[in-house]
């Protein structure tokens, strides 16, 4: 077995965000983060506490299905968390669950996210699923890690149609002035990895995936990200990581859903 596909690269990149002392949960429609959490637990972060589906703590024998929110995922959990009083209490404090993987329909240059509407709120062109927990996570002291399977000018825009979740708002410290701590930390897409420039808090290209050029990324992005002097190449997954993903974590390839045929010219 040689090679890897982009989903596997993204999983390995997300996995590297989790430290051994972290706790992390996954939400709805989050097969990629689930694979990343599992990969981290099986490699560099064996003590990483996973709250599967925001419900089951530290499952021993999770069964990945097409859903990242159904009961098989937290098989053999050591504890169930009640969603309102337990899960959200642990999130809302400042000690636990400091990192969140977030998928969003639209993401803008300052890391604000939209899962609500395209168009006007009251008469939208597209009614999206809704903010769910994103409207909370964005306002709390969390590191948001965005993942995007469809890096395109439609998903990465200069300004979101609607802010369902607070990123750096207009940038340049506006978030902190509103009294909010934390904020977006990383954006992992099917083309590149981006972070946020410290001063302007505008999205910055950090690395392009092997085989993707900086120009590929720029033409697939709906705004001009900050370009550092040198753009690295994303570290590809190791053969062992790929093996774990394919054989152990996701043998049925649920992770492939949500990826379109390559959109890069």
């Amino acid at each position, binding site marked *: 077995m040689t090679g890897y596909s982009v989903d596997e690269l993204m999983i390995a990149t997300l996995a590297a965000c989790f430290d051994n002392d972290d706790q992390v949960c996954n939400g709805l429609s989050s097969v990629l983060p689930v694979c990343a959490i599992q990969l981290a637990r099986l490699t560099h972060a064996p003590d990483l506490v996973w709250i599967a589906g925001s419900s089951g703590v530290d499952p021993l024998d999770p069964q990945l299905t097409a859903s990242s929110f159904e009961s098989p995922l937290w098989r053999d959990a050591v504890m169930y968390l009640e969603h309102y009083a337990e899960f959200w209490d642990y999130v809302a404090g400042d000690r636990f669950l400091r990192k969140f993987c977030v998928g969003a329909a639209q993401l803008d240059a300052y890391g604000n996210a939209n899962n609500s509407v395209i168009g006007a709120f009251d008469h939208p062109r597209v009614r999206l699923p809704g903010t769910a927990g994103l409207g909370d996570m964005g306002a709390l002291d969390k590191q948001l890690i965005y993942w995007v399977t469809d890096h395109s000018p439609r998903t990465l825009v200069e300004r979101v149609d609607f802010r369902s979740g607070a990123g750096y708002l207009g940038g340049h410290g506006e978030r902190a002035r509103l009294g*909010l701590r934390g904020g977006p930390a990383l954006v992992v897409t099917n083309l590149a990895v981006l972070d946020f420039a410290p001063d302007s808090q505008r999205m910055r290209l950090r690395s392009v995936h092997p085989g993707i050029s900086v120009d590929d990324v720029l033409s697939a992005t709906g705004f001009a990200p900050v370009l550092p002097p040198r753009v690295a190449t994303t570290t590809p997954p190791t053969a062992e990581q790929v093996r774990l993903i394919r054989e152990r974590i996701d043998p049925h390839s649920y992770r492939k859903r949500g990826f379109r045929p390559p959109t890069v010219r």
Partner: protein
Amino acid sequence: MRDKVVSAEQAVALIADGDVVGLQAGPTQCAPMTLVREIIRAGRRDLSLVCLSGGLPVDWLAAAGSLARCTFAAVTMEHFGLCQRFRRSVETGAIAVEELSETALYARLGAASRGLPFLPTRGLIGTDLLDVGNDALKVIPDPFGGPPVVACRALRPDIAVLHAHRADRAGNIGIDPGVRLPTMTTLPRASRRVIVSVERIVGSAELRRAPDRTILPGFAVDAVVEAPSGAHPTSLFPAYDHDAGFFTAWVEAAADDDACEAFLDRYVRGPATQQEYLGLVGVR
């Protein structure tokens, strides 16, 4: 003992047109589908739905024209995609929307269940959801000098509708070991009246063997309906998973107006009893 066990039809008679209805449902998780079908069969209109993150039942109620309004944190069927009938009804303006973050929705329900005028959250700050004219949300100062919080006004549904594993005739509701589903107890505590469908009516003695798995006391439950597989096609673990084939069939039907109506006629309005429905969908 007041016997709370009634038919689905009798239970749904407690719901009036225009009511605020709290619905227990996840994207594919445990919803009181027998009762949802009965609500549609009974032709209820102008309902204001309150549902944390419901999927297919919200889509059915939208498709049947039962909804005037919906309060939610998400409406989605997860890997089966957006709820297309709901989505279109919102896009045409037929259904008004109150979108809340999860903590804000919990705060609104929690305030009602605690008899408080509001509860605060630190969520939503920095989002546009505070700027869409929702008069149930007010940014207020912290009286102790910290940063402001969002006061979320108590939301008291007229009636809560949910499904669980078992109940006794007095209306005490028991669940099998497993996660307590989101809003499963908050929603009924917040609501004026409560209807619960269950897989099985059991003797109280069965509940008394594990009182820590009783989730609602009978005095706070108005009607109980026995409905085996009453969450189908949504899941009720550990009893059964969601029915992926049925979800897919609905998604396909929902894409077309005629197919949608035919689907509702066949599966929702057609079967007169739960047994008939289960036979039709091939369960058991």
